[in-house]
């Protein structure tokens, strides 16, 4: 028995879910189109005889079965960026366009920030917010290595980000990270319902702030790498219900090539809005990835 057992009733194929936790994940990387074309990069890796396979669902994602992928010349020169497979989903849902103004509210270490920048072809502006000075250095270093030229970094508490209207806002929230168990055992052991509830207050504050900062009709994407409904559906519901965020509706999350499970419509004694099924839960045994949650909100 451990903390995960409380998810027994919501996770499909429970035994397979438990079994996969002890299988480590293969490294994954994203091709950085700000610096190199996909074909040239694949040719370079093939030339070196490296074991790399593009994802089925995203042509710029690669499974990279090598030791220390962070020390490849291609990584050091910023041609690729080591990034979790499902961490590439939220920017795709955000769908930033060249020339727009985007806010990444919890940006460090910048994997999604730089993916957004690449999708915008370095045009427009990405504000990458990260309150922790210690974490800003990783964010800056990744932006510079990857040649992201349209990113400016701020250090506000995301709940009180002062001003600005954005076309799209990403809230990749601090979370209990239960979905990262395959990266390093022990994450689950630290989990508890109380920890999730402590994080929930912060997460709701961040998502409400994001909705406040988005233009009407603009997009907010909320993501975590955890299973806890307290940090996922309950957060989305609370932020949508808050008067000051002036509402919004969920748009269905569908990524061709990946298998999503719908967001929950109820958890314990709480009933969520029926549109919560449009959010997506990713379980590690279904796509052979980590665990993830993502919701796409269109602001009213």
């Amino acid at each position, binding site marked *: 028995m451990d903390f995960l057992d409380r998810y027994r009733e919501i996770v499909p194929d429970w035994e397979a879910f438990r079994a996969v936790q002890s299988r480590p994940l293969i490294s994954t990387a994203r091709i950085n189109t700000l610096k190199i074309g996909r074909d040239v990069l694949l040719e370079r890796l093939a030339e070196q005889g490296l074991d790399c396979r593009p994802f089925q669902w995203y042509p710029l994602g690669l499974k990279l079965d090598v030791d220390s992928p962070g020390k490849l010349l291609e990584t050091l020169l910023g041609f690729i960026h080591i990034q979790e497979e499902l961490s590439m989903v939220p920017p795709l849902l955000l769908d930033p366009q060249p020339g727009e103004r985007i806010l990444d509210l919890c940006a460090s270490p910048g994997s999604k920030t730089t993916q957004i920048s690449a999708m915008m072809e370095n045009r427009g502006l990405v504000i990458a917010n990260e309150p922790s000075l210690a974490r800003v250095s990783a964010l*800056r270093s990744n932006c*510079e290595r990857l040649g992201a030229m349209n990113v400016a970094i701020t250090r506000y508490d995301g709940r009180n980000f002062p001003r600005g209207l954005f076309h799209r806002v990403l809230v990749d929230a601090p979370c209990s990270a239960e979905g990262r168990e395959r990266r390093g055992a022990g994450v689950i052991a630290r989990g508890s319902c109380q920890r999730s509830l402590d994080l929930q207050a912060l997460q709701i504050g961040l998502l409400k702030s994001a909705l406040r900062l988005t233009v009407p009709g603009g997009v907010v994407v909320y993501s975590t790498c955890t299973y806890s409904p307290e940090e996922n559906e309950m957060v989305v519901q609370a932020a949508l219900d808050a008067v000051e965020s002036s509402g919004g509706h969920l748009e269905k999350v569908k990524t061709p090539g990946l298998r999503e499970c719908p967001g929950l419509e109820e958890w314990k004694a709480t009933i969520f809005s029926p549109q919560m099924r449009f959010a997506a839960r990713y379980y590690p045994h279904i796509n052979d990835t980590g665990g993830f949650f993502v919701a796409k909100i269109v602001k009213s």
Partner: protein
Amino acid sequence: MSPRSSRARNVFEPLEREAVAEIWNSRFAIPESVFSGYNFFRKARSIWAISDSQLPGLSYEAIGMRIMNCKDRPWKPTTCALQVFGPYAEKNTMHLQAASARLFMEGKTQEVDAVTAEQCESGYVVVFYRGDVLGCGLYSHGKLVSQIPKERRLPGKEGEDIS
């Protein structure tokens, strides 16, 4: 820490694009048009570049990329900036072969022959390998000192090809 207390340190002053382009042009013969899509700022002794767009009134920790350091003379370009602007350089460029490129990426100092250093005056140079910019090197009297930041270096392995 609140943004208010960091504001005092973060004074980014706008710079004229032409002034920055002229400095780069004089050392590396990079056409001024290469810089046309960017805005430039100075903070303390560093110069920063960001894609051209309207910046909202916020307190910034970083504005785009730090492209050069004016603390010492001569001014020093950052490796990441050379990877963006260096491909357009027409002088003070150096093209390395596999073994010397590896040493360079390990952060080592090495001797370079006259043919390799043909286009180079003493000072900072753009170092290439197979058409890609590796980064910034300091060249003088037949020696090339790698300026690759520590966290971007290859781990040292003797006699191995980097391709």
